[in-house]
């Protein structure tokens, strides 16, 4: 007797919950407008005073730009987060309506893009080469929607997709020069996660080019452990994954043992293993961050960070949205360079005082030369 009524109550409760969910859902389309979640950033009145080209921006404004992260998620301290910063900047400065969807596995890529399309997004930004296939398929199926993909370019190009790629070798060359000048033992080291070119190897090659250039200019003989032969795509020191900080730590310990005092780990999160190793050994050594300014994203190791080789994914994403708003034709391959502030090096932060003014001046000269096309990293890969 007793159990049946309570079971009925429970069942009733489920039914009520479902009904409530239905009716709640019925009201929500208006309420769930993404704009309502970020009221301050829309701020149309703050746009008005700027009024650079009031008429045009008022007409062309409010494109709906939507982003799909890869499995790293929107708060990965790395390129997904950086791309989202570019989206938010576009929201604040261009009045674009932005939203994002996170992917938990490769299975989500197509689903998330489809969701954005059915939500009426004008432009879809997919982050990372992992989304290459899903983006291409969606772009072909939806020729009227504009796409941009970070870290990937199609060959042959698709008419409605922008491939945003980064000439990180330019930034890495500056870092290599600065690192070589800092090194006291005259030995540096670099290694990667997985041998994926150019996403990983450009950092390593550019770093080596910077060191070689330093040697040429100053008659020194700073040398590199690990790294790779830029002319041989299959060579190089790689830990084999982008997950294990332990593997990176072991490689770093080996390099420290051999006297290296500047180490560049290229593999997103695994780089933290390098800093852990330097910290553990209390070595008089530094490491470098990649992609974003690690002094800000991994502050616990900021004391060991000479600088970071950065990819301004946020800038490239912002510029892609700007092009879409202006109605420019999609750029099949948009290369971020020092010139368009798409790549570069982070400030030296704690090491500001240890990098001489001479070196800083030399770095600025190098940057100018690279922008002018007089200095090309590939020319300094060594023999």
């Amino acid at each position, binding site marked *: *007797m*007793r*159990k*049946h009524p*309570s*079971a009925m109550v*429970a*069942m009733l*409760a*489920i039914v009520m*919950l*479902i009904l*409530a*969910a*239905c*009716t*709640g*859902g*019925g009201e*929500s389309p208006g*309420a*769930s407008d*993404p704009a309502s*979640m970020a009221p301050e950033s829309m701020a149309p009145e703050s746009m008005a005073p700027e009024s650079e080209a009031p008429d045009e921006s008022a007409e062309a404004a409010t494109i709906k730009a939507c982003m799909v992260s890869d*499995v790293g998620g929107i708060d990965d301290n790395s390129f997904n987060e950086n791309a989202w910063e570019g989206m938010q900047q576009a929201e604040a400065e261009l009045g674009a309506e932005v*939203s994002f*969807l*996170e992917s*938990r*596995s*490769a*299975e*989500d890529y*197509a*689903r*998330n893009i*489809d*969701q*954005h399309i*059915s*939500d009426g997004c004008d432009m879809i930004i997919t982050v990372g*080469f*992992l989304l290459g*296939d*899903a983006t291409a398929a969606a772009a072909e199926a939806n020729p009227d929607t504009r796409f941009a993909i970070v870290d990937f370019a199609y*060959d042959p190009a698709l008419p409605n997709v922008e491939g945003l790629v980064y000439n990180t070798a330019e930034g890495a060359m500056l870092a290599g020069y600065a690192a070589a000048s800092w090194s006291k033992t005259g030995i540096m080291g670099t290694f990667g996660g*997985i*041998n*994926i*070119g*150019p*996403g990983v190897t450009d950092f390593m090659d550019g770093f080596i080019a910077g060191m070689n250039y330093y040697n040429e200019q100053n008659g020194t003989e700073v040398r590199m452990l690990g790294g790779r032969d830029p002319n041989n795509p299959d060579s190089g020191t790689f830990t084999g*994954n982008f997950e294990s900080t332990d593997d990176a730590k072991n490689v770093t310990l080996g390099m420290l043992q051999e006297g290296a005092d500047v180490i560049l780990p290229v593999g997103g999160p695994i780089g933290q293993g390098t800093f852990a190793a330097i910290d553990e050994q209390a070595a008089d050594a530094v490491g470098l961050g990649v992609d974003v300014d690690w002094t800000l994203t991994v502050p616990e190791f900021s004391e060991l960070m000479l600088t970071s080789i950065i990819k301004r994914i946020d800038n490239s994403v912002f510029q892609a949205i700007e092009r879409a708003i202006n109605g420019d034709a999609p750029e099949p391959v948009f290369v971020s360079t020092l010139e368009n502030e798409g790549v570069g090096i982070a400030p030296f932060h704690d090491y500001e005082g240890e990098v001489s003014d001479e070196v800083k001046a030399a770095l600025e000269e190098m940057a100018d030369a690279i922008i002018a096309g007089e200095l090309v990293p590939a020319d300094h890969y060594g023999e």
Partner: protein
Amino acid sequence: MADESRHQELETTEAPASAEPAASPPVPEAAEASGNRVLSALRGILLPALALLAAFAVGAIIIIVTDFDLLGQWGSDPIGAIGASWSSVMRTYGALLRGSIGDPGALFSALFSADWEALRRAFGPLSETIVSATPLILTGLSVALAFRVGLFNIGAEGQLYLGSLFAVIAGFTFVGMPWFIHLPIAVAAGFLGGAVWGFIPGLLKARTGAHEVIVTIMLNFVSYNLINWALKTEFVQREGRPDPISKIVEPSAVIPPLIDGLRAHWGIVIALLAAVGVWWLLFRSTKGFEFRAVGFNPRAARYAGMSISWATVLSMVTAGGLAGLAGAAVILGGSGTLSPGFSPGYGFDGIVVALVGATRPLGVVAAAFLFGALRAGATPMQAATGTPIDIVVVIQALVIMFIAAPALVRAIFRIRAERRMGSEVFAKGWGS
């Protein structure tokens, strides 16, 4: 009381009727069992349903607590905050529901408008639920089948990866075949891949007594790295791609969509047929009787002349093959290409599905659709309300927790314990 006495009546009136042809002593027992079956089936649904309800309730609290704007409101305006919390939770769950089943209004009007595009859009959420449910049914069956033999198959994830590797290789290697030859070959290759990966722990268990939990977990790791390696070999890796990604399968090996323009594919039919197959194997075949006997009591089974080794190996091979089918269905029905980490844990979710489905094929199908719906609804939920997709993982975990602790659910909802305990031997612990 009234209910029970009526039940008694039902049984007594039923028993003589069915007893007439055979008129032998065991028949009344059988009739009682069939009468109880309705009741126990209801009970079987009740506990998971209540666990789900409890999980959603806890999930609602998490949604409220993790919303910092709402938390601020609790400080300044508690009464308004109650309303805001309620509407926030309802909006989230409403979006989840609309994302998994669809907007009832839109479904209804689309059915009558006969507008193809509207129909396609209205059925999109259901299609996504089917997409997510397909591999879950197969991995759920894989885990459930092994459970019935007293084996804990933690390796469905690894078996799924092996199946997907075999399927994708079969998919791009054979060129120029008609689809009705090529597709079955590719699907069978998926089964084979998983079966190989199930055979290893099965054989080790039968021959050496190595515990299948340890071996299957370890084989998961082996499979991840095997995939990583295979995807970098010249044979498998796509030309011109530096990253680990396989060649694309031939169009003749693609599992076609149920309806053009929707992602749901005929893999769901494969999965449902597999469920029927597992049901037949377990409850209608001699081998299945042996499987279950070994699962209930290995010593008694051996005394009755059954081979425990055979049952172990055979069930693990079949379980592995089912998980492999899941991998084949995901790859051949989805992207058509293999990349590392494509599975969001279908193999591990299969354990949950088997648990919630009480290791019955029908239960597994129902549970797989439930979790498939949760997963499919999570994407639009995230789009509409900004609720992180992880809330679905939390709810899923809570469901497992509540189901694993039936006493807790009974205590919450004040349900008396079942009289007949132990009819479902779910996991037999480490020593079995």
